[in-house]
């Protein structure tokens, strides 16, 4: 699995959480770019991401995320995916 694979699977998580299959995400995508990505859905996203990739984040790690790229990097680190 590489980071593009992670991004593809993360896109499925976004589609599920926001019930919108037209959403496209990139490493630069931020909460301001996605309708409904508020702090409540941020928690839903994190929980669904953990289930999808069978990993766990620390609370501080999730609070420091700036964009989707940061989330992909974090997932990659948890999965020991080379950059």
């Amino acid at each position, binding site marked *: 699995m590489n980071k593009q694979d992670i991004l593809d699977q993360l896109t499925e998580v976004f589609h599920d959480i*926001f*019930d919108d299959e037209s959403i496209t995400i990139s490493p630069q995508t931020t*909460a301001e770019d996605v309708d*409904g*990505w*508020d*702090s*409540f859905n941020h928690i839903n996203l*994190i929980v669904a991401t953990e289930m999808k990739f069978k990993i766990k984040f620390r609370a501080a790690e999730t609070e420091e995320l700036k964009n989707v790229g940061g989330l992909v990097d974090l997932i990659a680190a948890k999965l020991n995916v080379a950059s």
Partner: protein
Amino acid sequence: MSGLFTASVAKDDSVNILAQRSFTMADQNLFASLSGDVNPLHVDEIRARRTLIGDVAVHGMHTLLWSINVLAEQRRSLGNITHIDVRFPKPLHPNELVALNLTKETPTALHLRATVGSKVVAQIKLDISPSYTAIKQISADRPPLPPQKEYPAPQELSFPSIPGMQGLCPTFTSANDFDRLFPAAANLMGSETLRTLGACSYLVGIICPGAQSIFSRLNVDTDTSLLSMPLSYRVIEADERFLLVRHKIEGGGLRGEIEAFAPPPPPRQMSVSDLKLKISADEFSGQRALVIGGSRGLGELTSKIIAAGGGEVALTYAKGKEDAENVAQNLATTRTNTRILRFDVTQDNQAFYEEMATFRPTHVYYFATCQIFRHKSQAFELERLRTFMAFYVDGFWNLCRHLAGACPEHKMSIYYPSSVAVAERPPGMTEYAMAKASGEILCTDMDSLLPKLAVHIQRLPRLLTDQTNLVTRQDLSDPVDILLPIYRSMQQS
């Protein structure tokens, strides 16, 4: 991503609206009596304002059942619903006009979205079987049960006590009672299953997490082989990071999971006895302090600070008389007198001003506020700005004007709490920042408008109150450390 429930903008689903309605408080009470979920969040306008949501919210299961009922009315040839996955991203409040939108339809799936303007209050995904098989109505011959006179109160649970909880979930009415409210849904799914969905509301709102709870998600298969089994629950995860509880449920025709948040209880402001450790017994002696909005939050704390320092306090409430009495009870531990008065910035307060003519306040602390973090249905809401202006500008001006008239012979020091939001402009708070900025301008001009009043303005950071008591952890300043220096400065000026 900062702050829970900030504004969101959804797509325009108006072309696919299946139905619209609003829920009244009578609807709230009816569903509470059917489900047993009498959590104050749903039925008590006074106590609901102290919850994280800050106002009465419609039961999520009520929204779901209404949605399924609408769908069943309009799609007569539906197969059986085999799976329900519903999320509640934002609260729905009584009297809001909610629209039910069909966002996706395939032979085996239907997606619905309940919205208020662009605020999404429910995302519903239903899996549908290709053909319909009639569901046996197990209790169809049972008469309706009489309404319950008393329902169990919500459990007050600490988060560490939640892991491992399990048990059975009771029901409070005949399944037939759900038929009457949701006839088409009952015809489609069977009334027992509807009652079980009601019981899911009871599980979250009364049992676990109980008193402080927010229903977030129901993700279940329907299974007729489980219809005769009572609904059982077991906590399979209690996630301390997000204060999120996950239940495994089974019985009453359903099998799956429920997710609910367990936000912290309303914060308790420091007591007078604790404040006395920080405040000299006489440093506010001689003050006759009028604390507007003194029944909770920063107004409550202000009342206690002044009383702890030997000042005399008149505190006001708009709705929470019981809260005001509790504060006064705590103030009674000092030797000062306390008055409790009703004052509502949106109404005529003639009797209040007559009493002020005799109380003759030397200091006024203005903490009248509406709900600050209410979820918006549009990016900018003019009506919301008007509401903030009514509290932070009109209400403040009217108070100052009347006090100056009622007590014309003496000067008064007035504290106007502004907010760092005026400069920092946090997302989703444009209307709030605009109203506070207007209030600042009014205060600045008060020297010429009402020269007898000395107005003190300070922008406060976000401090821990009912309104900032969020699920996500925040580093908030201790309000005593922020307010006390301001009040000491006012006392000396």
